[in-house]
């Protein structure tokens, strides 16, 4: 018996699961960097977060929403890894589980699951923890390269934390020496959330995502580029080291956010034009929060705020239609 179906009869081999798997693969270099710099604790944070996210996805779908098992699409693993990447290595497991609940159940499944949530689930989890447990969320164990079980760690300030506490009058000269070197920031030998420290690892992930065509270069480029350009202009105008564009590019969650969070399909605009607008606005918000708010870091807030504007962008920003004039 012959089957009959509508066109096209061929389909790309890349389905949702494959895409999500690719994102997980792209996150692995940063996960490895986290373990190299923060040791066993980073492994615990990641394992707890991923396990909790997958568990909540499974349990909530099965017992509460009575929908199908969606854990097989790997999206909960991504949320788990991203949430972990946004936490310090000393984060207590109980709090991580709470954050995972907020991310998966409240921010994602309550909205209807994958594809329907308005806000990035991992960022909701992070910001919830950040507001609820500000002490634990701002203690940054000092990175200790290849010291796997070194539990006797000191704490260290993050690069952006140092900048925030610089004296406006003296920063250009006195405090400058305290900032980590570009090299340390690039490889990840700085204090911070476990997944954000290594620019090198994140760029490897970006290269993989681009090669697999999971994302295009637009959002990461325009987001990071906007931050770089604005801080660069301020730096050139004032000479103030707090505005150093390269430091801003390599520090905090900018690369993690620009490569993995702002590019989240569901919570970013659909068209290229919309994506560029969204990324530029994310960059501007990030700079404003970093430089002029009480918080040293602004990536998660910037992305969440822009998430709220995505439906509006999708409604009004469209690409050119063929044959409709330029």
């Amino acid at each position: 018996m012959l089957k009959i179906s509508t066109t096209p009869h061929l389909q790309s081999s890349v389905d949702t699961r494959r895409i999500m798997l690719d994102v997980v693969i792209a996150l692995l270099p940063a996960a490895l960097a986290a373990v190299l710099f923060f040791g066993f604790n980073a492994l615990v944070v990641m394992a707890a977060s991923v396990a909790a996210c997958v568990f909540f996805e499974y349990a909530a779908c099965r017992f509460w929403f009575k929908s199908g098992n969606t854990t097989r699409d790997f999206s909960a693993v991504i949320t788990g890894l991203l949430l972990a990447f946004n936490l310090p290595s000393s984060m207590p497991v109980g709090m991580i589980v709470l954050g995972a609940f907020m991310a998966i159940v409240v921010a994602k499944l309550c909205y209807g699951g994958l594809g329907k949530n308005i806000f990035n689930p991992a960022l909701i989890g992070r910001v919830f923890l950040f507001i609820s447990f500000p002490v634990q969320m701002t203690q940054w164990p000092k990175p200790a390269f290849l010291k796997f079980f070194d539990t006797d760690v000191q704490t260290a300030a993050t690069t952006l934390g140092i900048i925030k506490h610089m004296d406006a009058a003296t920063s250009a000269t006195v405090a400058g020496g305290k900032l980590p070197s570009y090299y340390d920031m690039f490889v990840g030998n700085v204090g911070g959330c476990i997944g954000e420290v290594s620019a090198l690892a994140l760029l490897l992930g970006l290269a993989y995502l681009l090669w697999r065509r999971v994302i295009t270069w637009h959002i990461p480029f325009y987001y990071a580029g906007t931050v770089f350009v604005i801080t660069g202009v301020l730096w050139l105008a004032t000479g103030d080291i707090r505005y150093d564009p390269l430091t801003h590019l390599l520090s905090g969650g900018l690369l993690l956010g620009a490569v993995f969070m702002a590019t989240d399909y569901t919570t970013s605009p659909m068209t290229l034009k919309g994506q560029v607008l969204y990324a530029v606005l994310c960059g501007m918000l990030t700079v404003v929060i970093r430089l002029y708010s009480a918080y040293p870091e602004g990536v998660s807030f910037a992305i969440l705020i822009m998430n709220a504007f995505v439906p509006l962008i999708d409604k009004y920003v469209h690409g050119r239609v063929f044959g409709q004039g330029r």
Partner: protein
Amino acid sequence: MNNLKTFSMGGIHPDKYKITTASLIIDAGLPETVYIPVKQHIGAPAKILVQKGDKVKVGTLLADSDGVVSADVHSSVSGEVLKVEALESGSGYLENMITIKVEGDDFEPSIDRSEDISREIPYTPEQIVQKLREAGIVGMGGAGYPTPIKTSLPEGKKADCLIVNGIECEPFLTADDRLMIEKAEQIVIGAKIINKALGIQNAVIAVDENKPQAIEALSKITRTYVGVNVQTCATKYPQGGEKQLIAAVAKREVPSGRLPIDVGCIVQNVGTVFAIYEAVMKNKPLFERILTVSGDACRHPANYRVRVGTPVSYLIEKSGGLSEETAQVVLGGPMMGSSVTNINAPVTKLTSGVLMLSDKLAHKGDETDCIRCGKCAMACPMGLEPFLIARLMRAGQTEDLRGAHVLDCIECGCCAYTCPARVPLLDYCKLAKIELKKKK
């Protein structure tokens, strides 16, 4: 080598599966019976001139074009008319067909069957158009638009660019490729004939990059013909779409709802151009065509010269029969061709291929929720937003469809091909078009 041209908006790169590129065109031979539909074109069905018991020859006029937008239909075999009745066609609809029992292979004496190439075009533009009309030539790329209309300029329009469409961007199909390799000079002369009819000086034969033999064969010939050039295009689907090809080759954009002639371009498929050559220079009506029988479940893939009206089942038998793995039989390419269950349906002037596809290849994954990746909008060669059209259709917001430019959809299937959530986006676009046309 000239630089590769292509269209800038959207497009995809499906696997090529061009397994029959090296297979010479072979004659499919004669089936016992042929079923010739009287409508193998866009427009009005032709008026039937024969009845049961009539003896016909190869090339005998069976049905006369009814009005301007219509086309003559000729017999593809010699023999006796058995029946004139409505039968199930490849599309699944009942269509009037003339059933002819094949007896021998007698050609109408007016047809020049010699293999010599006639190079001089002794006819006036009017005579050329008349000959095309009498030969029942239609666009063989798939649309089936009557060619005589396309070779006479409408009042007040000017054409300065003839593009011969040698892009065969559908996977599996190699019929056009083989035709260009084996009949390069006839195609070039065919292009000159169209140019003469339209008063155009230059013609461009556009071939995509993955057909090096065809490019070489054509380039060798065009050296001796002034005004005909070969242009290599990048291999990308749907490069063979009329609007995409014009955008690539002439850098012009056909405005929404308009025709190529509105930007001074005429596009003709290579198969049509070859048929034009044969009609004008050899007095040969369009009663046979080249097609590819292929597919991952096909035992002996090949390129055949097939008489119009030949049952698809005859070609399947010739290619090793219906294998067990065959889940679908598709007429045309796998992107835009239609799947059929009635394999006794006849080959028409427009059938570019017969594909036997396995369930593994043609399987459609289960639909899951849209993940808003935007890949469909990125892939759409018309710059549409298929996800939006699907959403509007689901929500029943049909009044907003016009703003989504649904009518510009060329139904290439890039959106549905690329969708990772397996949403049948093209189905929604087609339904949306029907909704809009209802409202008119």
